[in-house]
Each structure stands twice: as C-alpha cells, then as structure tokens.
C-alpha cells in the first residue's frame, strides 16, 4: 500500500483492527453501562412513598380488559355501546337536518331559480343534482359522525386501544402478521387512507404489505353510515320497537367483527402463500390510563375528524350529484343512461343477491363511500318509477323518515337478502380512490396496488354469491 492515507481512512482502518481484537461484546458492554448509569441517576432523583393506589387501579383494569376470558366480550360490549349510542342519538338530528336542508331550503332555491329564469336543466342540475346530493350527505352523515368520532377518540385517549392491540396481538402473530397491525386496523375504523399511512410503524416490508392489503376490511367512517342505515331499516325493523336500536347495533358490530375475522383470514392466507415469512417480535407498552380531556377531545375530534371527513364527502358529492342527475336525465333510446346500466347489470346483480342499482351506486361512489346510500335511494326511486317520493328523474328525495326510506327500498324490490348482501358488499369491496392512491404512494408498486384494490371486490362478489345461493336454497 503506497497510497497516501487520509485521516478518515486511517481511522476506519484502526477501527477495523480494534474491532477484530477487542471481542464482540461492545454492544452489550455499552448497554450495560448505560443501564447502570440510568439506574444510578434515577435512584438518586426519585423518592417514593408507600402509596400506590392509582397504579393498582390501572393493574386491576388491565387484568380485566386484557384477560383471556373477558377481554373479547368486553371489547364487543364496548363497541356495541358506542354504536348503540350513535344509532339512537343520530336519528332525531338527522331528520331535523333533512327537514331544514331539503324541505325548507330546497323549495326556496327552486323559487329563486324560477324568479331569475334559469333553464330547467340548469336548475335541475344545480339544485336537484348538486345541492341535493350535498344536503343528503350532510344530513345522513353529520349526526352519526359527530357522536361516533368523539366517543371513539375518548376510548383512544383513555388508553383502551393499546389494550385492544394487546388482545389481538396473539391472533395476528398466529396469522403470520405483525402485532402492530392491530393498531393500524384500529385506525382503519376511522379512515383507511390514514391507516395505510400509519402502517409505517411496521418495519418489515412483508408484514407492512399484509397490513396494507387487509386494512380495507376495517370498516371506515365512509361505510359506517351505510351499515347503520341499512341495519336500522331492515334488521332493526325485525325486532320489537324497544329493542330495535340494540339489535341494529348488534348487526353493525357483527359486520365489523366479520371484517376483523377477514383481516385475520386474509393475513394468514397471504403469509402462507405470496408473502411468506416469520412474524417479527415487538414490545407493546401498555400506557397508563389517563383521564381523557373530554372537552378538548370533543373539540379536536369534531374539528379534525368530523368536519374534515364531512368536507371530503361534500366535495365528492358535488360531482356525484351532477353525474347522477345527468345519468338519469340523458335519454338514449327512450331510457336514461342510468336505466341502461341498471338493466344491463341487473341479471348479474340478481345472481349475487344484489341489484343493478347497488352496482351502479358503487361505481359512482368509487371516489367516496360516503355517498353510496344517497345514490342507491335516488336511483331506486328513478327505476321503480315511484310517484310522490321524488319529483322528477335524478332527484334525491327527502330522507326525513326511516319508514319512507324503507318503503322506497321495498318498492325497488329489496328483500332482507338484498340488505344483508349490501352490508357484506359494503364491508368487502374495492377501497375508495383516495385509499387506492395512498396505497400506491406507500408501496410504490402497481402490482400490490392492484392486488389491494381487486382482491376485496372479487371476495365481495364471491361472498354475496354464496350467501345468495344458500339463502335461496332455504327459503
């Protein structure tokens, strides 16, 4: 070696020889003296009294909520209570908002439009398409969100979610996935797109992909209203009135639990086939229970979550409202575009226990799941040619009472099977376009984005098909 050495090279060379001679215990020795120092300094600074009541309280709660036998039932109970409060509490304000936005303000717009002489197609597009879609989204979504999000955030701040993760960790591990997937799944109950960003907490790319692909099975807030509404109309309707709320809540919880089960099944299948590998270990700290700051929580969850989600829904409802109105008012060969699509896909829909209206609604609602129910109701009115329920093609009619909604859907040929399959399909179908884009941004892979988008649609159709066949076999 005749070459002149720079100081850096000399240092690195020295390091090489030192590492060679000094053994392999650097890391352990260093960690040991680190811990010794930390313990000594902490010991000098901290004094304790005997009293440890608070701490024991934490331990007692932990023993209950993470116990082998009570952990899961308590989790289900907690979820059911949250949904029950949401369903019971949202009915009345929803009806009030609908009365205000649809029955009071819309006629004002119409008379205004007539007064300034807008052509019928423009006032139709603006008021009966765009405005009505917005009005609907606000009245259907705002009340449940304003109740559900603060409740969920309170549970989160209290420290309950890490306990849920603790309960589910073993199951995820057995499914070959990362235990932290329980946390990202919990975030998916709010918003799948946000949850997919949060999978960054998972280090291993293999386990992260599993978490991303299966996140869609966590019902997001765009889909809760669909579940809640359909469950209230069709399943709550089966029970006596005083139990209806509880039965509907139980139905929604069952769908949510089915989503969790599917998460495990699909994670397991993926980790046994295309994403093989060992589950990596991690340590999960159970944080102390902290009394949530109730007012602050309500404030941030209303501002940060409810309004943002609502705003997104409204933004997507505007073009969707226009598309719905146009599709049902542009006539080709005596039928509107919407009717062509519905008639064309109807037979396929029937095979899987759905109908053409639902399929069209899911195409229109790709940008945002939030508008599925409004679209379905509107299209049903249109194709069933109901009189009195709406005024004109493509008009989202007033959602002021559940009974009216139920009548519309029954007139559109809906049965309990249709409702059940809609709930299933709402759980298992392609993610919304925002989520798909987020998946692409996070994975940088067209292949995995396609898998994550198409896998659930295929699974959804298969599930609905099987349910429909079994149902028809027994009825």
């Amino acid at each position, binding site marked *: 070696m005749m070459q002149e050495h720079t100081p850096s090279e000399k240092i690195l060379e020295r390091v090489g020889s030192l590492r060679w001679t000094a053994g392999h215990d650097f890391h352990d020795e260093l960690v040991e003296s680190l811990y010794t*120092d930390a313990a000594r300094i902490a010991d000098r600074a901290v004094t304790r009294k005997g009293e440890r009541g608070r701490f024991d309280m934490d331990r007692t709660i932990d023993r209950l909520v993470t116990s082998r036998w009570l952990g899961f039932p308590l989790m289900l109970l907690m979820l059911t209570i949250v949904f029950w409060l949401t369903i019971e509490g949202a009915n009345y304000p929803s009806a009030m908002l609908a009365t205000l936005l649809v029955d009071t303000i819309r006629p004002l717009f119409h008379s205004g439009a007539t007064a300034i002489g807008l052509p019928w197609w423009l006032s139709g597009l603006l008021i009966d398409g765009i405005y009505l879609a917005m009005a609907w989204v606000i009245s259907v979504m705002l009340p449940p969100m304003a109740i559900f999000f603060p409740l969920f955030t309170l549970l989160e701040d*209290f420290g309950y979610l890490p306990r849920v993760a603790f309960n589910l960790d073993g199951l995820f591990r057995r499914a070959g996935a990362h235990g932290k997937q329980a946390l990202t799944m919990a975030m998916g109950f709010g918003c799948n797109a946000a949850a997919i960003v949060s999978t960054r907490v998972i280090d291993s790319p293999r386990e992260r992909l599993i978490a991303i692909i299966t996140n869609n099975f966590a019902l997001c807030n765009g889909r809760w209203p669909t579940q809640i509404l359909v469950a209230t109309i069709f399943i709550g309707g089966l029970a006596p009135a005083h139990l209806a709320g509880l039965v509907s809540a139980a139905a929604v919880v069952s769908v949510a639990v089915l989503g969790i089960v599917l998460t495990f099944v699909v994670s397991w299948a993926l980790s046994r086939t295309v994403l093989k590998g060992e589950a990596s270990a991690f340590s999960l700290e159970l944080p102390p229970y902290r009394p949530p700051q109730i007012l602050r929580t309500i404030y941030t969850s209303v501002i940060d979550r409810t309004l943002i989600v609502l705003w997104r829904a409204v933004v997507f409802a505007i073009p969707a409202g226009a598309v719905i109105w146009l599709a049902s008012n542009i006539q080709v060969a005596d039928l509107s575009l919407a009717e062509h699509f519905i008639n064309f896909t109807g037979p396929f829909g029937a095979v899987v226990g759905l109908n053409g209206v639902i399929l069209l609604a899911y195409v229109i609602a790709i940008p945002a799941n939030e508008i599925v129910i409004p679209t379905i109701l509107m299209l049903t009115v249109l194709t069933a040619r109901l009189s009195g329920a709406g005024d004109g093609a493509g008009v989202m009619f007033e959602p002021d009472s559940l009974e009216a909604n139920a009548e519309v859907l029954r007139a559109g040929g809906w049965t309990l099977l249709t409702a059940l399959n809609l709930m299933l399909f709402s759980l298992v179908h392609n993610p919304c376009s925002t989520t798909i884009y987020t998946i692409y941004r996070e994975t940088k892979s067209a292949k995995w984005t396609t898998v994550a988008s198409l896998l659930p649609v295929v699974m959804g159709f298969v599930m609905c098909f099987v349910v429909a066949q079994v149902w028809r076999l027994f009825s």
Partner: protein
Amino acid sequence: MTAEQTAPPKAAAGSACEACPAHHAANLIRLGVNMANWDFVVALAGNPNTGKTTVFNHLTGLRQHTGNWPGKTVVRAEGGFAYGGDRYKLVDLPGTYSLLSTSDDEEVARDFILFGSPDVTIVVVDATVLERNLNLVLQVLEITDRAIVCLNLMDEVQRRGMAVDERRLARDLGVPVVPTVARKNEGIPELLQAVADVAFGRIVCKPHRISSPPGLKDALGGLTDEVAAAFPGLPNARWVALRLLEGDPRIAEAVRSGEIADLGRHLSTRSAFATNSLAQEAGQ
C-alpha cells in the same frame, strides 16, 4: 426527604416567578406551520407516549392529534414558534426507547439529532418511569451537549405519591431539567426560557457521559483522540468513536465521506451566530 418538602410543580412555578419575563404570554407567538427564516432549530425527542406531541402542540399552536398509545407520531412533524423575538423551528421526532439499534423510527430520530444539528434538543421524559426514560436521555447527551430534559407528567408523579428531585437530576445530567405538566401548560414558560438560554449559549451544558465500559477504555480513548484530531470542533468525538467500534455503517460512511466534519463546522458557525446575537442583545 418527605413528600411535603418537594413542592408541586405548580407551586414552584407560582408567585415568585410570576414577575419573571418568561411568564409574559405575549413572549410566545405560535407560528403553526409558518416557519420560514428560523433562527434556531429545536428537536423534540423522547420515549413513546411521554407527551412530546402535547408539548409540540402547545408551542406551535398546531393541533396534531395526540393519542394515548405508543408510536402515534410516525413521521416527523414540524412547526414554528417565536419567543422573545427569535424564530424557532420545532421538529417533533418519532418516539423511541433508544438510539442504539436501527429500526426506522430510531434512525429518523438519531439522524436528525446528529445530522440535522438542532440548536437545542428537548428530551421529553415520563417522570413516573424515570429510569427507563433516562436510557434515551443519556444516549442523546452522548450526541449533543445542547439538550434540555423536560420532566413531563409531574402530576402523575404526585398522584402516585412519588417525588422527583429535578435539581439533583439536573446536576447529575449536567443539563437543564424543567418539570412540566404539558397537558395543563404547567412549566411550558420555564421550558421556553431554558430553550432560549441554551440556544443563545447563556446556559452551557456539561452533559453526563456514559462511563466507558471497562473492557473498552483503552481502545475507546485512543480512537476518540484520533477522531477529535481528524475532525476538530466535533462535539461528540467519543460517541462517534463508540459507534465506529460498534460497526455502525451510517457513521462509518459519514466518516469516510467527511460528512462528519461538516457537523462540527455547522455547529460552530451557529454558535458564532448565537454569540453575535448575544452581543447585540447586550449592546441594546
């Protein structure tokens, strides 16, 4: 010492201090995401779930959602505030238990404290489990000598009938220790004052350095001298030597490319700047 002797943080921050300029709320201007032309960069480090994000929100006026679960902050968040006329950029690092192993979030935190060369690093610690939190504090103190320990969750310390002697801790660690209850905004004014003091060099820290493991003493000593000679001005030559001995590829690369040298230079220009501003202040 009995518990009565240790004043609760609120009382400590009480009447006697009211007169001090730190308490003028107007001194803190929350800049949210508007952080152009900052004078100082402040990093927020700490174990998961100790209240870093709460401190971050208090200082910047932003409303990052804080969650009671570890690992809530996945990416680093940035915000700004102005205090006493100077603009600070605050960087909220992901919560980690250590800077030794190389998971992604630990690397983000480590790289920022090292290569982002923050003017001040605040380590937020959960005072109820001090020992575990000190592991991280000691590691941060190996890297930088411009650090402050924010002793958070002091209300829980009291509720558990414990007491933490922050003066003793400050003496042992060699850096300012500020007791806080971040969620109630207690101690935040004192924290800001400490940040300004360290940023301007009014407080010079003499951070505790981890005792050299006996088996390593000679090897480490020699190598440290060599690193210090090759890169004058480097604030953490011994730590660099330690990482090299451990075979940290990132640090070896930084030594090979000379990136390490920039570190020393960068900091010395910063402190020159701080000294200038200090001189200006004195002149006014």
